[in-house]
């Protein structure tokens, strides 16, 4: 697939763009779906809550109704019971005209009988009073003491059957602690309907409790009965807790809520450690009690504080026939538990949906931002590349132009600068030949000096041209053996001066990587210098080899000739810099500059060490192949 391979950037950018738009569309659709789901969820939740409240309200009302009816039915039963007792002949007889000693005996028998049957029916005791309210039975009894029971007796003697609220009183033992009692009373009448007295049946104060328990539900649902002062007429489900928070005392006479607790709002949740800022005496009656006392039926599903300070929901009413208020309460947290559970599930689902949506939007946004950033970076990179290419092209063309100029200059120099020199030399020669006899010795000497000058200038021009050529030449590196190049150079030198006695030692092989032509020029100069500067020694030595250097090895060319002062080492490689006069050693001062330029153009280093009359050593490095 050479075609697809050759155009990967275009292809990939196209597909990235496609992904980008597809992502945007699907994200938009998904967001819309999530929005619809959220609205539907919120509306559904609202509907469910409304429905739930309706059902809760119905349930509360139904429970309250059931409790009230069963309480009324129970009351009627008790009243009927006391009336039927009061209608017994023995009772009537006991209150009738005295009939001598038999009466006392009859009374004792009735007392026993009433006690027996009363116990069997769950009654704790009884009072039989005559029309003046005096105690007839039990014999020797003190009669009703508690105001509630006295009032009850009054009502019965006035001809009305009645039931008291629970009240605190004593049974037979006058020294015992008072306990909660509840009495029913009925008048005792003779055959003509005249009231002979009253019968009171006493039972336990919590006798009503069983009927109220019908309203108990769940963990916290309870039914409360209370009188006009808000005093609780039944027990509480939470007596242990009420004791622990001190709302009812631990004293045995007050250790129950019945008849000891007034239903007031403490102002905060006592169960959660709320400590009221005002004394209980100044607290207001609870919301439900207040409602019931105003004679209204009512309910509250939003929540109000009960006597524990716990937020509850409930319903209440005043029951005239019983002369008491009824309230049915349940902790709001429990009442709404099913709804809260449903809501939690629904909200969790919606939350999950929402987070998924947010997450995907975030991903999409990040992807978009990244794609944009990438595109921007790519564009910038392209622009920079273009600029760079442009700049490189400009520089290249500038450099090419400069190089061309340099070449033209060098060409000019090589051609034009030498022509006049040849003229000077040629005509000096002609002058010498044709008119030499007309000149004296010093005239001829001057002409010789003129010719020497032109020749030196010719050498300088040639060397400069070589340096310029070395600087311009294209480097074409190859594997090269410096050892064999050096041997060629030395061979040439020996041919030029066969009379010289020089011991040349060249390490073999000396593999290197560089331009063979340029390296040959470098060795020409280095070995040529070594040859030249040992010319005053009868028996000279030149050595070439390698030494280990930091990060590789260095080549060296060493001689035992005139050497140089290290103080001037920095001048060695400068153009026209010479450490010896032309008279001492001929030369133009361009050779080492040429060598240095060749080594530098290869990326190598060159340096020298030496001392006057102790010889000189030149070191140079060349980068390895591939470096």
């Amino acid at each position: 697939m050479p075609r697809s391979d050759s155009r990967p950037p275009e292809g990939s950018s196209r597909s990235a763009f496609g992904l980008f738009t597809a992502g945007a569309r699907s994200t938009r659709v998904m967001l819309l779906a999530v929005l619809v789901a959220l609205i539907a969820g919120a509306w559904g939740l609202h509907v469910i809550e409304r429905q739930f409240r309706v059902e809760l309200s119905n349930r509360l009302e139904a429970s309250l109704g059931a409790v009230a009816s069963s309480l009324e039915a129970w009351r009627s039963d008790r009243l009927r019971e006391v009336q039927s007792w009061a209608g017994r002949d023995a009772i009537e007889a006991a209150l009738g005209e005295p009939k001598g000693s038999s009466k006392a005996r009859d009374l004792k028998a009735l007392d026993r009988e009433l006690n027996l049957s009363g116990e069997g029916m769950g009654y704790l005791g009884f009072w039989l009073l005559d029309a003046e309210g005096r105690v007839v039975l039990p014999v020797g009894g003190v009669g009703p003491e508690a105001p509630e029971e006295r009032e009850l007796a009054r009502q019965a003697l006035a001809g009305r059957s009645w039931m008291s609220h629970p009240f605190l009183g004593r049974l037979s033992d006058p020294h015992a602690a008072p306990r909660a009692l509840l009495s029913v009373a009925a008048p005792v009448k003779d055959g003509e309907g005249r009231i002979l007295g009253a019968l009171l049946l006493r039972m336990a104060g919590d006798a009503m409790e069983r009927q109220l328990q019908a309203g108990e539900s769940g963990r916290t649902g309870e039914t409360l009965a209370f009188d006009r002062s808000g005093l609780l007429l039944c027990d509480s489900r939470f007596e242990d807790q009420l004791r622990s928070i001190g709302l009812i005392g631990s004293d045995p006479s007050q250790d129950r809520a019945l008849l000891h607790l007034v239903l007031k709002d403490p102002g905060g949740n006592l169960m959660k450690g709320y400590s009221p800022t005002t004394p209980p005496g100044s607290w207001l009656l609870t919301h439900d009690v207040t409602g019931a006392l105003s004679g209204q039926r009512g309910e509250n599903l939003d929540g109000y504080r009960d006597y524990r300070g716990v937020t509850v929901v409930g319903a209440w009413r005043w029951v005239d026939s019983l002369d008491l208020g009824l309230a049915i309460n349940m902790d709001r947290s429990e009442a709404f538990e099913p709804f809260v559970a449903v809501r939690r599930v629904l909200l969790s689902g919606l939350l999950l949906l929402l987070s998924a949506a947010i997450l995907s939007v975030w991903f999409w946004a990040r992807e978009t931002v990244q794609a944009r950033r990438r595109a921007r970076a790519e564009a910038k990179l392209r622009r920079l590349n273009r600029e760079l290419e442009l700049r490189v092209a400009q520089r290249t063309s500038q450099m090419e132009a400069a190089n061309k100029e340099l070449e033209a200059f060098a060409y000019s120099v090589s051609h034009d600068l030498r022509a006049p020199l040849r003229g000077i030399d040629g005509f000096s020669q002609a002058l010498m030949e044709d008119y030499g006899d007309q000149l004296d010795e010093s005239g001829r000497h001057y002409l010789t000096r003129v010719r020497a000058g032109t020749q030196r200038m010719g050498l300088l021009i040639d060397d400069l041209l070589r340096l310029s050529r070395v600087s311009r030449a294209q480097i074409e590196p190859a594997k090269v053996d410096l050892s064999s190049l050096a041997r060629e150079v030395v061979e040439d030198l020996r041919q030029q001066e066969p009379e010289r006695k020089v011991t040349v030692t060249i390490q073999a092989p000396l593999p290197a990587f560089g331009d063979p032509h340029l390296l040959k020029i470098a060795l020409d100069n280095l070995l040529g210098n070594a040859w030249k500067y040992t010319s005053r020694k009868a028996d000279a030595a030149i050595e070439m080899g390698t030494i280990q250097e930091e990060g590789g090895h260095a080549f060296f060319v060493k001689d035992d000739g005139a050497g140089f002062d290290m103080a001037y080492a920095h001048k060695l490689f400068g153009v026209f810099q010479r450490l010896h006069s032309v008279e001492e050693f001929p030369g133009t001062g361009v050779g080492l500059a040429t060598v240095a330029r060749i080594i530098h153009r290869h990326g190598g280093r060159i340096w020298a060490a030496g001392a006057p009359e102790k010889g000189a050593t030149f070191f140079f490095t060349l980068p390895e192949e591939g470096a």
Partner: protein
Amino acid sequence: MTPEIDPKGTVLLVEDNPDDVALTLRAFKKNHFMNPVVVAKDGAEALDYLFCEGEHAGRDPHDLPALMLLDLKLPKVDGMEVLRRVRADERTKLLRVVILTTSREQQDLVTSYELGANSYVRKPVDFDEFVAAVGQLGFYWLMLNEPPRPRGGLG
């Protein structure tokens, strides 16, 4: 005109520098060459002479020089162009051409041979060397070397 070895053949010297002309003529004299020397001061004049045009319109076109000494850097038409035209023309393509120049550029040398120069001689600055060089090339090209017989009726 015989096409045999011709020690008296004309030498065409194409050189713009009068000093070099004088020195070359002196070198000829010092080497005892008696050949007539025609000097052209630029490439155009050299071509006129060879092809008998312009100033040299009346000249016999069959009378070709025995040797042309050609400088490369010339006014009007440069040495390379002269060489190219000489080699391209049927009448002159066998003419012996020696490049005699100051240029040391490798490129000049290569181009000259590619265009068909017979020799390439660099003028040394030292006049003694110059005399020796001129002597050697004159001796070789004018006396030793045997030129080819021109085909057609030019010879």
